């Protein structure tokens, strides 16, 4: 339905473009005075006036109609004033199911009435939408056609529209950030209404699965986030232990020692590691790395779990190598040649120059890169979802299973989207923590990298 409307809109705009430019051409041919805009701008202007207002209206209508219809239907439901939000949404979803033809049990007469009401409202809404859009299109087309003339500054009008579109586009990023913050904070506040924020932040037990079966357990501190954060820290630490030395050493070799041909082949190969989807790493960690790590742990006589922190962390570390490598690469390349040559002139070997001159000079850039990589490791999801554990344990044994923030978010939300139980809301509270932590890391990292760039 809305697809057809969109197609009709596009078609109408296209037609108006040709009609408009044809008319502009006709008026210009017989004109004695100079014309301001070329015919194509008159056509474009007519097309924009025809299509854009109607298109914006269509989007707004589609975004708003469901909630309005829902409210009207629930309001007409007998005794709806006394119902709470949960029952309302339950009734609404049942009404929609029945209206869509998925009848699981014989609906009650009230539901039947609501379904009839819903269907009539939907029909009214559709007719109203088509009518308003047709009217908007007609008015726009009429004005756009009428206004064509030699004095009309069609180019300015078109350019203004384009500028508005560009301004709107540049706001999308801000709106996205606001949307993220709003949705996380909104849902997290609802969660903190059920579980006190102090218990969430300082609790030492994380057992969300118990809380769905008996809500009162939630009050006993089963939503303590400390063990989850601890697990995230352990896995990120392991991944950094793998990635930082490997990344920096390979960057040193590639920038300082390797010849051009070697570098031209090896660098893109390293970058592939960053391009492999994380779900692939996750599967590889489960299939190959985890069993190997486990048998290693058993042969060392350490208690080992099939989904160890070491396997997940190590694979994640490999994924991060290219980030650290390429950022260190940039940092090393940005060190002025004068410093390097000065060191050589004093008789230092290449290795001494690198260790005594280049690395200290490039350190801020490298640290920035490491922080960015750390933020990636903290936010990385699929590898840990597939390879790390589900049970929150405070252990530093890398062969044992730990869980992370992202694992908990995904497991809490998969297959369950009721917005009112603490289990679902807890995921948003975790998301808020994740967002804040990564935001801080990113801000520090970006600032360090930028400052460093300005220095040289």
């Amino acid at each position, binding site marked *: 339905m809305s697809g057809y409307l969109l197609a009709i809109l596009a078609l109408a705009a296209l037609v108006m473009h040709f009609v408009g430019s044809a008319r502009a051409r006709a008026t210009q041919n017989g004109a004695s005075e100079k014309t301001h805009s070329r015919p194509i701008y008159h056509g474009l202007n007519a097309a924009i006036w025809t299509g854009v207002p109607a298109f914006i209206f269509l989007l707004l209508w589609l975004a708003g109609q469901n909630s309005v219809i829902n409210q009207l239907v629930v309001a007409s439901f007998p005794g709806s004033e006394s119902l709470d939000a949960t029952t309302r949404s339950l009734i609404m979803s049942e009404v929609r199911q029945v209206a869509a033809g998925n009848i699981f049990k014989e609906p009650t007469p009230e539901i039947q009435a609501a379904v009839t009401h819903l269907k009539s409202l939907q029909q009214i809404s559709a007719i109203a939408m088509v009518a308003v859009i047709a009217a908007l299109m007609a008015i726009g087309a009429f004005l756009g056609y009428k206004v064509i003339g030699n004095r009309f500054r069609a180019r300015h009008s078109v350019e203004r529209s384009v500028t508005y579109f560009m301004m709107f*586009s540049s706001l999308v990023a801000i709106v996205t950030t606001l949307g993220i913050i709003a949705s*996380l904070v909104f849902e997290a506040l609802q969660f903190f209404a059920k579980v006190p924020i102090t218990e969430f932040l300082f609790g030492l037990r994380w057992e969300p699965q118990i809380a769905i079966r008996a809500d009162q357990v939630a009050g006993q501190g089963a939503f303590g986030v400390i063990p989850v954060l601890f697990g995230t820290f352990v896995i990120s630490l392991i991944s950094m232990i793998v990635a930082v030395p490997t990344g920096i050493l390979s960057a040193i070799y590639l920038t300082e020692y390797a010849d051009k041909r070697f570098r031209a082949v090896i660098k893109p190969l390293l970058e592939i590691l960053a391009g492999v989807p994380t779900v692939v790493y996750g599967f590889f960690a489960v299939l190959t790395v985890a069993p190997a790590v486990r048998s290693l742990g058993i042969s060392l006589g350490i208690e080992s779990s099939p989904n160890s922190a070491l396997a997940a962390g190590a694979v994640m570390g490999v994924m991060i190598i290219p980030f650290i490598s390429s950022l260190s690469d940039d940092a090393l390349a940005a060190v002025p040649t004068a410093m390097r040559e000065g060191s050589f002139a004093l008789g230092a070997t290449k290795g*001494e120059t690198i260790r005594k001159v280049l690395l200290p000079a490039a350190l801020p850039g490298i640290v920035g890169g490491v922080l960015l990589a750390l933020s990636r490791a903290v936010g990385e*999801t699929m590898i840990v979802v*597939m390879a790390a554990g589900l049970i929150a344990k405070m252990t530093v044994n890398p062969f044992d299973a730990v869980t992370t923030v992202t694992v908990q978010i995904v497991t809490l939300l998969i297959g369950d989207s009721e917005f009112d139980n603490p289990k679902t809301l807890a995921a948003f509270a975790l998301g808020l923590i994740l967002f804040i932590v990564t935001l801080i890391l990113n*801000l520090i990292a970006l600032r360090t990298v930028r400052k460093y760039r300005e220095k040289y």
Partner: protein
Amino acid sequence: MSSAALTDTVSAAGVDWHSDEMKARRRARYASDRRLQIYGIIAITFALGFLAILVGSLTFTGYTAFTQTVATIEIDLSTAKVDPANIGEADWRGIVRGALRAQVPEMRRSDERKFFEMFTSSAPFLVRDAVVDDPGRLTGKSSFTIPMADPVDQLAKGAISRDIPENQRRINDKQIGMYDQLVANGVISKPFNWGLFFNADSRFPELAGLAGAISGSFWSLLVCFVISFPIGIAAAIYLEEFAPKNRFTDLIEVNINNLAAVPSVVFGLLGLAVFLGWLGLPRSAPLVGGFVLALMTLPTLIIVTRVSLKSVPSSIREAALGVGASKHEAIFHHILPLAMPTVMTGSIISLARALGETAPLLLIGMNAFITSPPEGVFAASTALPTQIYIWADSPERGFVSRTSAAILVLLAFLVLMNGIAIFLRQRFERRW
């Protein structure tokens, strides 16, 4: 070798550079230089070795899923009492079982159940659908291809060894005997597994395919591209060419850089709360997946576009303005077309990233079990990476190799997209 030692040697006059002590020092210094080189080589070898093992092990486990063990069975439908007007209602189970039974005439009745288990349990439906498609088959003998069930498939591919004790394998000695008989009859073959590409998901590995996932990914990426491409370019042009330099545009800039580093799972939470919760869009729909992916790719796209706009020399702009073009005309007629190859490269690479993105799609429910490919952006579907996740979680042995095969398919798409991007860059990009 410390800096103190260095200055000592420099400042001390009359050092005998050929003394043994000095020779040893030089050797030590060169050795440490070499050590650093060796560490670098070890680091690179480790990273690339890991990549090789990754690709190698996936290929090794995945290549078997590109063939499927099938039985080609002749069925004579002219004798079966099938009503041509109502093909679906016939006793297809009985017909297929009769035809299968004829392959092993001397089988005891008590073994029949085990025997039928060796074929995919959907065999009657496959035969029925084939006949519905071509009712001409009702008149005489025709052959039907029936995939073997997972344990038999594994046996045929050598993944289940005949040497391990009977109680530890999922196929017993009698079934192996019957399988050998089928092989002797010449009905077993291992053709290329087209079902992997043209079937939708299924609980049974032998029938599961990627059609739903591939089309789901296609629709999501289409939505993602349609939204993020124009908006990304428009935003980049505005920020690069029009925006005044003030606090607000600084904020936008910092914000875009930060957004590019926000974990993808957070975008999933955004999609869940806003698109599913507040706007009431359908769960598991490629439309919502596309929205979320578009929001994720936008920051990268804006950054790439800005860089490419910046790299166009200002003489082009000045020449355009000089002959009387408006600012918009200079940008849209001259600068943007010159920047376009880089922008296209960047957007293809970001689309490739979006194709591999899993976590946000999981949160908006694109990990549902759906047995038919989606017919549009509103129908529930999976995507390639989420399909991989679902299969990786499935216990059947056959799904291990299918998961690897799905990963190989995904990687092939990624290689293809990146290849196109590299081709575009090398063919059309200008260096100034």
